[in-house]
């Protein structure tokens, strides 16, 4: 089984996000970058499939030089090799433009399965996996929490409002992974030492024959509104306090 996992490097969810001076991008100065958490499900699933059925796992990531760190994390988890599409200007680009580049890099690897996280936690667009499936002419099973691969076929389960839908397709196919698919392993310390020696290939968009074409661009980024200050419930007696609290919950907070 030849498996490709596409990963995106995103700000750590604990990072404090500040909007940059241009109003369209984030200030990346103090940000700690990590592998998109949903992509970890893809890496883990790929490693499990290869352990059972044999094969090789290649991780692919696009963006500036720092993206190599996320690729190395995947190698430390156990992936066999990595391809880095280096483009310093790609972070925040149109997902379709990114998908085109990824498709160009993935095609020559002739994978049986291509994994993505169902979305990236930074821009939440969730478009890239579907676009890559389209460019590669592969079926896509999206937002999958359970997966079986056998006899050239893939069967995936997606949860929908208290129910599940089971999807089937023939390989090769694109899968986007949802939380619940598995428990991603740690990049162990021995794994980190081994990752140093694994092949990591760097390609430019020009090497891939990919031309950057953005259909959309970010117009503005708005910070979340400041949190409203707390309100002290007034009242002399317990009864008064409770009555005033109930009134606030009903009329202002509108939760009862």
């Amino acid at each position: 089984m030849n498996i490709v996992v596409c990963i995106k490097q995103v700000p750590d969810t604990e990072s404090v996000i500040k909007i940059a001076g241009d109003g369209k991008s984030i200030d990346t100065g103090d940000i700690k970058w990590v592998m998109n958490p949903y992509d970890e499900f893809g890496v883990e699933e790929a490693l499990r499939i290869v352990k059972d059925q044999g094969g090789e796992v290649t991780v692919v990531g696009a963006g500036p030089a720092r993206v190599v760190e996320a690729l190395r994390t995947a190698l430390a988890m156990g992936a066999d090799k990595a391809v880095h599409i280096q483009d310093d200007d790609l972070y925040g680009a149109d997902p379709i433009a990114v998908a085109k580049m990824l498709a160009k890099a993935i095609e020559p690897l002739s994978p049986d399965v291509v994994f993505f996280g169902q979305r990236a936690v930074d821009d939440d667009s969730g478009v890239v996996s579907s676009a890559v499936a389209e460019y590669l002419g592969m079926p896509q099973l999206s937002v999958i929490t359970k997966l079986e691969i056998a006899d050239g076929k893939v069967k995936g389960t997606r949860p929908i409002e208290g129910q599940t839908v089971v999807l089937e397709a023939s390989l090769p196919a694109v899968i986007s992974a949802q939380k619940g698919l598995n428990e991603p392993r740690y990049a162990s310390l021995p794994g980190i030492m081994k990752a140093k020696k694994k092949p990591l290939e760097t390609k430019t968009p020009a090497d891939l024959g990919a031309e950057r074409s953005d259909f959309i661009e970010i117009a503005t980024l708005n910070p979340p509104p400041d949190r409203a200050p707390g309100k002290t419930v007034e009242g002399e007696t317990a009864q008064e306090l409770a009555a005033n609290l109930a009134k606030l919950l009903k009329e202002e907070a509108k939760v009862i």
Partner: protein
Amino acid sequence: MDFEISENLRMMVDTVRRFVKQDLEPISQQVEDEDRIPEDVVQTMRELGLFGLATSEKYGGLEVGTLGECLVYEELSKVNACFRTRIGTNNGIGSQGVAIDGTEEQREKYLPLMASGEWIGCFALTEPEAGSDASNVQTTAELDGDTWVLNGRKHFITNGDIADCATVFALTDREKKARGGITAFVVEKTDPGYFVGTIERKMGMRGSHTCELIFDDCRIPKDRVIGGDAMIGHGFKTAMKTLDKGRLTMGASALGSAQKLLELSIDYAKQRVQFGKPIAEKQAIQFMLADMATQIYAARHMLYHAAWLRDTKGTSVIKEASMVKLFCTNMANKIADMAVQIHGGMGYMKDFPVERFYRDLRLTRIYEGTDEIQRVVIARNLLAEGK
């Protein structure tokens, strides 16, 4: 000067940080209450490679270097001291005797078992009459044909109750004592006459046990002398060399706990309201926080510098290691005191982790060489430098 930490080490720190958050923080109180670490967590520690940080790659370890080891200890010590202690003997005093002075056969046999965490090693030097005066060991070893026969009692042995093998120091010449009369042995738990005695009742460090080891006509093969027959009588030097490195990692552990206490104190000071305002707005609290952060900054830089000296210059850091242990552990104890003060009554309650850190940290000024012994080492080196 370059203070950049390598990508590899940063990745390792990330993994340990994540492990602490996901797997250790949620069970820290449970470990405290039950006085034991669940086996599945120990298994994850093995898989992560935490038992073989120091051991060379040749014997199945990771060889992450002194700085690497210190960074891992720092992270692990932000949650509960017992987790660091569990891996501590295999990376340090439990394996270093064999690693530094052992024969090739001994290294090949014991180091991979300890690096993987399959075996736990411990270090049995201390006795009721041999604490800081470590040369005063009373345990004896006599050669009887092809076997050594050990008799005596060790105490305060960290991980002694779970150890599969122990580095044991015994008198082989009563007259010579530390000057050629003490020999280091590897004793396995299955050796006849090896017994685990009382598990000591401690002030803190719950989840990690220290206990007595008793040797009652304990018979071990002749080839268990660390370093072979040529090392008979030279065990005290092995003990001193083993303890040297541990002093830096002990500093790292104190530093990690101090950093955590500062973070807990800042969080608490921001949310605790008295006289209508968060106590973080009071200058008395601000000054304590400022002093804590300043001390941590100083401690971190002396620790990293000493680790860097040892890793890159290959210089002996005996004096610096003692300075680091003395400064970092005292600093952490002062910070624990301030953290309790900032938390007020809550700081004295077992519902908050500061109370546990306060108790656990007290030991760091005592074990693996007391404050006073560190000062003796520093002064001895200072005075010798002038000669």
